[in-house]
């Protein structure tokens, strides 16, 4: 069991290999092979995550830090003490993330096999999806901020690639898709800037980026608490100090500290009610690997991760110091260049920078504008990346850094306000949209606002809970909308198949009509230039799909009810927990943020129910408003099966964290209700996850508001009144609500404001710089200085130096030889007589030379 954690690197390896195969051999594979490779890689990660879950439950939730074999030590610069290992952290928080990421991811892979059928880049789509999964798992399993950032950027790239997946659609569609991709990427860059600053500041302050180090316990109080339960001796002591003493006094033979109760191992919590049973149970399983440590008393400051260090420093008094482990004294003061700052200030800054990062990735005000545009991507991408998983990365980062957020109340208030406002604003905009996916996109922004607000009020467990339930029902809704769009397109095709048989053949459709879905419209547009533009995502064209697409309808309805927070669907529990927590934070803890969050979120919850029911009425109820809707078929099994699975989970997933204090609703099942399973489970990793008690009043208000919103939406849109006769929204037609509706429809002019405030000036500055570049740099510097200077130098080299000196020398040598030979050739007269004289003279000379010694004697 101990070694089961070592499978963690496979989490990344499987999808990476899947992506690699589809990248390299994708074009040669047929659709079936590509889809199977992609889906199997995704499914394999789910089983790895399941294995890690088993590991945790079997090991008393003891977190594991895994060093992948080939990447031992990642970035290491010993001279400056920089050491960032490539480590994966297996703890309750990361496993929670892995579980729903891989589960939803696998389902969406299967769905995409049906949805993307006929796409010319089918295999590449699966490669991108697998690559996304790999990066997302790096993000959630990394044990340091830098690894998280690697995953963070990686998923951003995949998001960019997938939003712009249909970059080559004709008629300007492709450009729009590419622009949406760029918008997403650029908005995220702004956020990444914040993450980087938070990262730098964290490293500067704590000298490390590790979340936790080996042997460190994330939440000593929680483990200490368990120790009490296991020993059942000290009834009320649950402080860290007490936990320490236990750790020392009860070391068993294996040299390990004592265990804990094991009801949790069975996936149950440890509420007060089940305490009695745990003792004997706990003893039996003691032989397994108990947590080696239940607190961090054995670790010095330097041996702690960033959160442990932050916690240690923030609790120092002014002037008090702490031995770091190597003799250096650590105080509250942080020296940053020429400035000094209190640790509180630094943490506040880190939190604000992280908030900026989360605002980018998790689409909060002011950076949320990219997410609605991101719907340009294929629907499975919207479901996986832009609803269920990637966009929750910001929330994950904040929950992971809960120690920072908890210790920065002012910054947390900002977080609350940002989250609550985003929830409200996005909910408002969603009410005025026509595009089925755009409504869901704004809904996602709004729900992410809920999570961020939950982080702001300190309800970290509730944020994760809502993230998890939201992943299921929002993925369900997106996949449902994809099914609807698919059906509409097929209906539209069907229509034209009957209208124009010649055209039908030209389209080259296969027999059952599952043609290349996006190429489809374009071909039609080409074939029927006069035909009006048909938008399969426009809810005005829909209506009455209930009978055409029954499975999609029922699952969509479940998703809607879950999102609207109707009892007992998943959204009810998670949304209610956030609302209850904010109510508690306001009323009992007296935090202003609690009141703000409650007010904003309850209004947003009302809007949620309203716009979702508006959508149900427009899409599924009433009568078909377009011929395509009349002929929309139900989708293929690859698409409906994931819908059904997700629908089942959307109903039941809320039960994993049922709050306590539920009163008469519990129907005497106190042993089941009030368990806070997820929160308790998260508490092993999240220091400040606290279980929100059930508050009957809050639940009542929320439920009543939810039903009221649905009732209201039903009154306005129900009974085939979804559109007025002139094709307007009833709210648009109403004089009182018209302006508000117009504001929502125009997306509150958010993009236009950015256009005016940032993009316009930016473009003007760019133009100015371009002018400077062209006129000054290019024309003057480039042409006059560089070109002319170069020409001058070249001329100097060519004329005097090359032609003058070098050529002169060479020619001079030649001329010298010529002149000299001219002299010599005169001897060659051609007159035989002259040669004869020369011969004679030569002979005489030789004779004289021969005779000279004789004559001298």
């Amino acid at each position, binding site marked *: 069991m101990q070694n089961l954690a070592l499978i963690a690197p496979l989490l990344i390896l499987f999808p990476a290999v899947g992506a690699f195969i589809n990248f390299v051999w994708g074009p040669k594979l047929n659709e079936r092979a590509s889809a199977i490779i992609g889906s199997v890689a995704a499914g394999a990660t789910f089983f790895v995550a399941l294995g890690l879950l088993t590991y945790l439950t079997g090991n008393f939730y003891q977190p594991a830090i895994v060093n992948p074999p080939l990447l031992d030590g990642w970035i290491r610069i010993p001279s400056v003490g920089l050491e960032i290992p490539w480590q994966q952290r297996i703890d309750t928080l990361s496993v929670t993330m892995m579980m729903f990421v891989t589960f939803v991811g696998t389902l969406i892979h299967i769905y995409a096999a049906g949805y993307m059928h006929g796409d010319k880049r089918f295999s590449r789509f699966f490669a991108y999806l697998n690559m996304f999964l790999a990066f997302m798992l790096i993000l959630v399993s990394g044990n340091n901020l830098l690894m998280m950032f690697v995953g963070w950027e990686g998923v951003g790239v995949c998001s960019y690639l997938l939003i712009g997946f249909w970059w080559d659609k004709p008629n300007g569609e492709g450009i729009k898709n590419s622009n949406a991709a760029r918008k997403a990427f650029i908005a995220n860059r702004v956020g990444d800037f914040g993450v980087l600053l938070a990262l730098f500041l964290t490293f500067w302050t704590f000298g490390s980026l590790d979340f936790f180090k080996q042997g460190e316990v994330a939440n000593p109080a929680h483990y200490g608490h368990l120790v009490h339960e296991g020993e059942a001796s000290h009834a009320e002591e649950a402080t860290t100090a007490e936990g320490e003493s236990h750790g020392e006094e009860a070391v068993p033979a294996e040299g390990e500290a004592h265990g804990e109760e094991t009801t949790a191992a069975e996936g149950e919590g440890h509420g007060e009610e089940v305490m009695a049973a745990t003792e004997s149970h706990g003893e039996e399983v003691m032989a397994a690997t108990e947590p080696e440590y239940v607190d961090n008393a054995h670790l010095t400051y330097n041996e702690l991760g960033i959160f442990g260090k932050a916690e240690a420093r923030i609790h120092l008094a002014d002037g008090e110091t702490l031995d770091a482990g190597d003799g250096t004294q650590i105080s509250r003061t942080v020296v940053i260049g020429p400035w000094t700052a209190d640790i509180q200030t630094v943490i506040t800054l880190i939190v604000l920078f992280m908030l900026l990062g989360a605002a980018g990735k998790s689409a909060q005000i002011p950076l949320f504008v990219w997410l609605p545009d991101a719907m340009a991507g294929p629907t499975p991408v919207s479901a996986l990346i832009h609803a269920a998983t990637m966009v929750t990365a910001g929330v994950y980062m904040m929950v992971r850094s809960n120690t920072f957020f908890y210790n920065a109340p002012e910054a947390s208030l900002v977080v609350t306000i940002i989250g609550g406002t985003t929830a409200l604003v996005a909910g408002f905009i969603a009410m005025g949209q026509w595009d089925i996916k755009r409504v869901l996109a704004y809904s996602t922004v709004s729900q992410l606002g809920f999570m961020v607000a939950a982080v702001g009020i300190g309800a970290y467990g509730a944020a994760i809970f809502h993230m998890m339930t939201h992943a299921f029902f929002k993925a369900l809704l997106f996949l449902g909308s994809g099914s609807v769009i698919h059906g509409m397109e097929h209906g539209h095709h069907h229509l034209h198949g009957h209208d124009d048989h010649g055209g039908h053949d030209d389209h080259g459709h296969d027999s059952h009509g599952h043609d290349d879905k996006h190429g489809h419209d374009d071909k039609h547009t080409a074939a029927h230039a006069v035909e009006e533009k048909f938008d399969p995502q426009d809810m005005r064209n829909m209506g009455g799909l209930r009978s055409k697409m029954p499975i999609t309808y029922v699952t969509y309805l479940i998703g809607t009810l879950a999102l609207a927070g109707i009892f007992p669907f998943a959204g009810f529990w998670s949304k209610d927990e956030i609302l209850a927590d904010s109510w508690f934070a306001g009323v009992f803890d007296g935090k202003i943020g609690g009141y703000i969050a409650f007010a904003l979120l309850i209004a947003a919850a009302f809007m949620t129910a309203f716009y979702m029911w508006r959508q149900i009425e427009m899409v599924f109820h009433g009568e078909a408003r377009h011929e395509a809707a009349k002929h929309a078929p139900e989708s293929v099994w690859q698409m409906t099966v994931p819908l059904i699975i997700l629908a089942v989970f959307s109903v039941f997933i809320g039960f994993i964290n049922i709050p306590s204090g539920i009163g008469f609703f519990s129907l005497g099942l106190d042993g089941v209700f009030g368990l806070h399973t997820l929160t308790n489970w998260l508490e092993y990793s999240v220091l400040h996850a606290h279980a929100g008690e059930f508050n009957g009043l809050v639940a009542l208000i929320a439920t009543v508001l939810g039903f009221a919103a649905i009732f209201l939406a039903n009154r306005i849109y129900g009974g085939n009144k979804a559109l007025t006769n002139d094709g307007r929204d009833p709210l648009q037609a109403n004089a009182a609500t018209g302006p508000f509706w117009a504001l929502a429809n125009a997306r509150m002019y958010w993009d236009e404001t950015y256009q005016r405030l940032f993009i316009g000036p930016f473009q003007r500055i760019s133009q100015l710089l371009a002018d400077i570049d062209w006129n000054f740099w290019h024309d003057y510097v480039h042409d006059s200085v560089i070109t002319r200077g170069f020409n001058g130098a070249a001329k100097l080299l060519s004329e005097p130096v090359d032609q003058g000196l070098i050529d002169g020398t060479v020619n001079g040598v030649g001329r010298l030889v010529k002149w000299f030979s001219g002299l010599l050739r005169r*001897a*060659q007269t*051609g007159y035989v007589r002259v040669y*004869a004289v020369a011969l004679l003279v030569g002979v005489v000379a030789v004779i004289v030379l021969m005779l000279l010694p004789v004559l001298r004697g």
Partner: protein
Amino acid sequence: MVQTEAYVILSMVLFAIGTLGVLLRRNAIIVFMSVELMLNAANLALVAFSRQWQGVDGQLFTFFVMTVAAAEVAVGLALIVAIFRTKQSINIDELHTMEG
């Protein structure tokens, strides 16, 4: 008995006449005859020394020279005839196309 010196002197005179004839005359035939004169001057000297030393080497060598001279005359006269045919003259000063 005539002194060997006399033969040698006569040989020198003949050789000088031949040399001057080669160098100064322009008629190819004359030049040719002058060359013959030089050869025969050499022959005379060879024969004179042969008698002086009572050996036959000089006389033998003379025969060779006469044979070569005969061959030379055959080639040389043929050349002269060829030159005359092309130039209508046997003035060797007109033959300087090999000038450098």
